[in-house]
């Protein structure tokens, strides 16, 4: 497993037509310890997804570098670390079945070790494995996306609001599933969300960002243990401590974004 050392010296969206250049990041630094779960929380449109894309190597148009650290045995350089990315939309190939979608992301060795069936089974999609994604419910599609991400045995798992726009019961089941999957197959997780309750339940560490260019305004450990994460009372206590005591930036209602005002950014 590897951690992350993120150093973005400069990232801007270039000017287009009458829209001026927009500076998103300047001298932004973030280190993520191997095996930790970091939630990145902040107003819409401030550039959190852009950060994930830069880490994933999808957006290379920036000054700075993203290094993976640690991982392999002592003194060894980590072999090129594997990234998995769970996007806001499941991004499954609609013309391939669930099983094929998972299998296509794996290498020959992983296929030989039966990881497809193992993770399809772990996310509870064995019955639906030979269906095409569009025939599945939205919740099941997200399960398939989780199976694909974990089956690739990632060192670093990037997640961009993976449980957004689901009903609360489904989202909760998927969060529990994510905890189960991480227990089976640990990974370093960088998780973008708006949902403060989700953050408390899942994350070891909360990074709150805001501003333009983006800066870290809060960096706290949450540190619920495995049973605390599943305990509503323990979660509520931590949530109250972190979000309701004179902290104006985020409205502490699960999944809701701040209503109006300067914080409602571009989506």
């Amino acid at each position, binding site marked *: 497993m590897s951690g992350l050392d993120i150093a973005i010296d400069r990232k801007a969206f270039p000017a287009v037509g009458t829209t001026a250049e927009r500076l998103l990041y300047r001298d932004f630094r973030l280190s993520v310890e191997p095996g930790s779960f970091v939630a990145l929380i902040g107003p819409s449109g401030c550039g959190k997804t852009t950060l994930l894309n830069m880490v994933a190597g*999808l957006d290379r148009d920036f000054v700075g570098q993203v290094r993976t650290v640690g991982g392999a045995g002592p003194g060894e350089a980590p072999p090129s670390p594997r990234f998995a*990315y769970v996007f806001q939309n499941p991004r499954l190939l609609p*013309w391939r079945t669930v099983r094929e979608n998972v299998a296509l992301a794996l290498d020959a060795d992983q296929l030989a070790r039966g990881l497809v069936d193992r993770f399809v089974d772990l996310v509870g999609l064995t019955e639906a494995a030979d269906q*095409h994604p569009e025939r599945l419910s939205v919740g099941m599609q997200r399960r398939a996306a989780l199976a694909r991400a974990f089956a690739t045995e990632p060192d670093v798992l990037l997640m961009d609001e993976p449980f957004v726009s689901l009903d609360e019961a489904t989202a909760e089941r998927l969060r529990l599933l994510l905890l189960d999957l991480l227990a089976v197959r640990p990974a370093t997780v960088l998780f973008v969300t708006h949902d403060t309750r989700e953050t408390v339940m899942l994350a070891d560490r909360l990074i709150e960002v805001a501003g333009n260019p983006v800066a870290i305004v809060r960096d706290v450990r949450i540190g619920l243990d495995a049973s605390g994460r599943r305990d509503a009372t323990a979660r509520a206590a931590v949530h109250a401590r972190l979000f309701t005591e004179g902290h104006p930036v985020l409205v502490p209602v699960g999944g809701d974004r701040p209503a109006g005002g300067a914080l409602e950014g571009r989506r």
Partner: protein
Amino acid sequence: MATGSGVSSTLSRIGWTLVSLAALVAVWAVAAALIDSRVLPSPAAVLAAAVRDSATGELPYNVAITLGRVVVSFSLAMVIGGAIGLALGRSPRADRFFDGWLIVLLNIPALVVIILCYVWFGLTEVAAISAVAINKIPNVAVTVREGARALSRDLDEMATVYRFSWRRRLRHVVMPQLAPFLAASARSGLALVWKIVLVVELLGRSNGVGFQLHLYFQLFDVASILAYAIAFILVVQAIEILILQPWERAANRWRR
């Protein structure tokens, strides 16, 4: 689509097609009887000509020759045109540069391409096949370019993150998205290609349906001309129904 009512509506559509074709033959028979001339032979005379040339093996041989040319030039045009379309759709710079070339190629009359190929490469099989393929390539390229411009960026990023090889990406991510565009150009392509193949054969080959038509034209044998034409229409329709349509259905099976 594969519901019970779908099957019965397909059957009724086939039924209507048969009725309308029978009516066409009837009109033809009546007209031929009224005119009573060699220039418009009756359906029976055409059938007799078809039977006669089938018995000697001439008709099946020439249809097979022409079909072979159609298959080779059609495949070449689809592969080359598809590759060009994909490249232009993905690279705006290349598209800006080659767009003019494509417009020129689209507007060259088929006959000019055929004549130039025969002049430059001689009256050879290669020249004949190239001439047909060159006529079709720009159409395929233009259609596939539209599809390539609309390729999903989301799926492209997914394929990048999960390290798809270029081959895997082409087969599982790109081709399924291009399938409707390839199907559209295959449809129109087949119709165009076989007509051009006949012209190519007429001008510079010594076998094939086009050559036979030329021969019977000199003999003023309209019944045989119609017999060859109808035989080839049947073959092309069979390809459409037995190969293209099932392929399209298979490619669309995943749709809800």
